[in-house]
């Protein structure tokens, strides 16, 4: 029994030691990104192409934009790929990121119950939120400092609706990712602001449907930044830059445009010099 146990333990130890050694023999970068890019399946579509071309493996940690920027601030990622322009510019201005490149956009939509009790359907996002507030119809908020959450708060502010007193009443902050927010809204027949990509790839829709879309203000820009090597010397500058350069290159931009779910394009490339910017 003892010999058996000793053999087992040494086997396990060998396994552990061999594990990281194998991983480190390859070139890889860590990218902090958002749940919308991961959960919509975009990375699964893009990364194999990039890895095949450059031999660099990309490890994606998917978080809300706020958290992803924090991971970059702490130096725990080489590249940050998120969607909250104001927060990204602050990140670069504070010296945590090197330079921000615009990569692509998609748009936000408001989804809600087909019966639309607040009569919110239409084009104007701010007007729709005012109606939801007036009807006290249930609304699910991410509440997690993500890019989507930041956008939602901007729209409420534009509509001069103060949601802080109605927290826990019809306004429900769940503090989680886009998927859980959609799950919650589907379960409670509530309204929710979502990026179109996550919505299109979301499967548990229940009675929800797209009610508000097409407003200029619903435009959702994604940006990518290298974490500043001056602040975090271990940042893999060459490999990280290679990834950013590929994303904004004609090849990367085309790969983004090619990604479709049920014939519908999810992200629209708009890097400077590659079409619309």
């Amino acid at each position, binding site marked *: 029994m003892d010999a058996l146990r000793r053999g087992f333990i040494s086997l396990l130890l060998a396994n552990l030691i061999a594990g990281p050694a194998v991983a480190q023999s390859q070139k890889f970068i*860590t990218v902090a990104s958002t749940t919308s890019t991961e*959960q919509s399946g975009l990375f699964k579509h893009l990364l194999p192409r990039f890895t095949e071309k450059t031999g660099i493996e990309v490890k994606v*940690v998917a978080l809300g934009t706020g958290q992803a920027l924090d991971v970059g601030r*702490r130096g*725990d990622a080489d590249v940050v790929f998120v969607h909250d322009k104001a927060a990204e510019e602050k990140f670069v201005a504070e010296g945590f990121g090197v330079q921000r490149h615009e990569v692509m956009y998609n748009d936000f939509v408001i989804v809600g119950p087909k019966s639309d009790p607040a009569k919110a359907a239409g084009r104007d996002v701010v007007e729709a939120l005012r109606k939801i507030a007036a009807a006290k119809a249930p609304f699910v908020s991410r509440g997690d400092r993500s890019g989507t959450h930041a956008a939602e708060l901007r729209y409420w502010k534009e509509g001069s609706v103060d949601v802080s007193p109605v927290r826990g009443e019809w306004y429900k902050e769940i503090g989680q990712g886009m998927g*859980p927010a959609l799950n919650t809204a589907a379960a409670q027949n509530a309204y929710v602001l979502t990026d179109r990509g996550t919505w299109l*790839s979301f*499967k548990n829709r229940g009675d929800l449907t797209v009610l508000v879309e097409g407003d200029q203000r619903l435009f959702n820009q994604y940006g990518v930044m290298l974490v500043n090597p001056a602040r975090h010397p271990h940042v893999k500058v060459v490999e990280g830059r290679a990834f950013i350069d590929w994303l904004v290159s004609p090849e990367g931009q085309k790969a983004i445009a090619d990604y479709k779910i049920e014939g519908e394009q999810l992200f629209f490339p708009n890097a400077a010099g590659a079409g619309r910017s």
Partner: protein
Amino acid sequence: MLQAFGDAIALLQALDRDVLAIAALSVRVSLLAVTFACLVGLPLGALVAVTAFPGRQAAIAVLNALMGLPAVVVGLVVYLLLSRSGPLGAWGLLFTPTAMVMAQTVLVTPLIAALTRQIVEDADRELGEQLRSLRLGLWRRATTLLYDARFSLVVAILAAFGRAISEVGAVLVVGGNIAGHTRTMTTAISLETQKGDLPLALALGLVLIGIVIAINALASGLRLYAMRAYG
């Protein structure tokens, strides 16, 4: 609900290599964590059981309370330690399977130590006088009692393994749920639930339960066999 179960079972038949790799990682990480936790927890628990020292009751109360450590908090603490901006940042271990092993080891060591303390103390009640009359040192007494209680300790180790392989908070925070690298069964289940793919999440859950049952059956079988052979 029934619909989802039906879909889940249909999906099970189409399990691909990705899922097997994820399951293998889950088992590997949790087995390693439990192994390291045993190396620390078994001797620690046994020593507390046979030693008299001031504040022992308080120490036992703390040890027992630590069995309920929230996984997310353990994950967060290990994250802060391993982060590039943390004290062990230079090791570059964050978002690796090694980090997940470390977090789970911290999580289950108190569980093994606390259960061992109780089991060894019970064994000591039966054998203690005899051992003391042999004038054995503390360490010899502890190891003798550990050996004597070995079959009961299997259950403690299985409980620790169950806690490790089923937790999601710690591995998610320190592993980052990176596809093909640090995605485990529990983080994959959580991800699929978030994506609203409930049948797939349920299918993965069934696989996880199957793995846990298989490993428990294996351990129980070994235990029975060993009891007959050495008991």
